[in-house]
């Protein structure tokens, strides 16, 4: 039971491949980070895993079924993608944003019913934003916005907050990139809770080493469109691998109070592996 990218290759323009023969296994219930510098193809891999794009070679399967076969609506009920930033041109309320997550469950002209509303509210509660339900989304702080968007994403799943039998995956693209420190901590806490309490599979793409270290149990290291290494975070966060990936010499240590790995950059690597994009 997993979300699997099986030897996928993708390019936006034929002459510029972004991903080459990538294999990524996301086990059900996992908390996985896709780690790499900018331009390594993280966002693209996330999009492929989310079914937002189709790989030119290889396939993406959910619990063994190719996403293309599964169909858009069915996929939308089990895979949700949270973009890095959400900017609205119109004044939707927080509740409206959450309820939009229920659309994959509605027929063509069907209107959401009390069940859908309950699930949407549960989702808001799970991210600690229920008290904001009547507020306009545009008036919220960055951290609040991100939490509401996550709520909207988990509302896509069949029973919302409560666990289901099939693999349900939440994909987040750089979830803390534009947030203040306090909000970063908030998001990490929420994601961990969602993963632990309801067995939600969480995949995060990031270039932030400390987010990867502080949140993820497993990591996939992506280097210029290819998988450099994949495995438990503790095994991936080794100075040699990090230096190869980022071209930076780092010190990795276990932080006393939190018990988590921390990564501190020390100096530019002596041997230059990377070309800056």
């Amino acid at each position, binding site marked *: 039971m997993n979300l699997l990218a099986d030897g996928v290759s993708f390019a936006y323009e034929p002459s510029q491949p972004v991903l080459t023969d990538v294999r990524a296994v996301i086990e059900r219930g996992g908390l996985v980070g896709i780690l790499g510098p900018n331009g390594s193809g993280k966002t693209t891999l996330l999009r492929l895993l989310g079914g937002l794009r189709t790989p030119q070679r290889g396939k993406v399967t959910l619990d063994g079924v190719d996403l293309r076969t599964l169909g858009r609506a069915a996929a939308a009920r089990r895979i949700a993608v949270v973009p890095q930033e959400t900017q609205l041109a*119109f004044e939707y309320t927080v509740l409206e944003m959450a309820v939009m997550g229920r659309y994959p469950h509605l027929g063509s002209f069907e209107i959401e019913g009390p069940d859908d509303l309950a699930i949407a509210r549960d989702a808001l509660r799970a991210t600690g934003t229920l008290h904001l339900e009547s507020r306009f989304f545009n008036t919220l702080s960055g951290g609040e916005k991100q939490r509401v968007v996550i709520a909207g994403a988990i509302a*896509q799943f069949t029973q919302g907050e409560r666990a289901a039998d099939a693999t349900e995956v939440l994909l987040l693209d750089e979830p803390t990139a534009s947030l203040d420190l306090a909000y970063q901590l908030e998001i990490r806490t929420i994601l961990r809770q969602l993963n632990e309490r309801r067995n939600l599979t969480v995949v995060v793409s990031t270039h932030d080493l400390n987010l990867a270290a502080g949140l993820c149990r497993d990591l996939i290291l992506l280097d210029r469109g290819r998988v450099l290494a994949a495995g438990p975070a503790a095994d991936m966060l080794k100075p040699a691998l990090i230096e190869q990936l980022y071209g930076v010499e780092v010190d990795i240590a276990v932080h006393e109070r939190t018990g988590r790995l921390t990564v501190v950059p020390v100096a530019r690597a002596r041997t230059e592996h990377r070309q800056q994009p």
Partner: protein
Amino acid sequence: MSIRRRIAFTWLGFGAGAFVVCLFAPLIGSTSIDFSRVFDTSIPFADNTDAQIFFVARLPRVLAGAMVGAALAAAGVVFQALLRNPLATPFTLGVSAGAALGAMLALTLNLPSGIAGFSAVPIASFAGSLGAVAIVYGLARARRQGLSTNVLLLAGVTLNSFFSALILFVQFLADYTQTFRTVRWLMGDLDVSSYAPLIAAVPPLALSFAAFAVLPRSMNLLSISDESAASRGVDVHRAQRLAFLSASLATGAAVSLGGPVGFIGIVVPHLVRLLVGADHRLVLPASAFGGAAFLVACDTLSRTMLAPLEVPVGVVTAIIGGPFFLWLLIRNR
């Protein structure tokens, strides 16, 4: 209130409002008519001036106003969602410029009527609008990944400028009276004086509104971002195509019927959002009804304000719409 009830109330409330406006509008005019005579079937129609004024002059005009107003307001909503910009109008992407060019050419070349008694101007105008749509769509699709809204906007705005330049050129080549006619056409005119143009406009408008019926939920999602929509199961390319083509078709038909009447496509959706919120399942039907009521009301003003002279309806919508829009902008500071 649940969304279901809100949708029902919106349809009923705005629908009733539009109905009432359209009911009263033919009763008002620059001439006073005797209503007992209007509906007196014992008088042969050809002798009954009051009935003729009601059924030939006023009623088709009110219906035209309702159709054009509904089409332009709804198209405005759809374009705003598609381009993710509340300042988009049905005229942003060049459809109206194409229609105007078609009309200009027909007026300047004084083309005789085209088909089965239909005047050349609406036909040429509609053809022009379709041409513009085809060009913009073709340009925006040139990139491999479906309809990019950025390219769409660029293509539309560029086409607008180009067609506007051509229009000026045609006006320059025309002689004085033709130039006056073309300028007058740009100000809008709902005096159709027969039901034939209305009936001719029904097929494209029906098609567009059929699409409008299925779009609102997708529009909610699309108006956030392509990825939000795709992640929730929307076929983004298909939805964008449908939105663009249906809104353009409605705009082309409306402009061919009554000329490019401005401000409806932006004032009415804005006003409606202030009243019902941003959910397109409310905004779209409310705007359609609101647009109909607004234009019919403006047209009633246009033919009574300075009777027996008529103020072109586009001027009236501008006089009302302009200051209202300024007020909206100031209010939002």
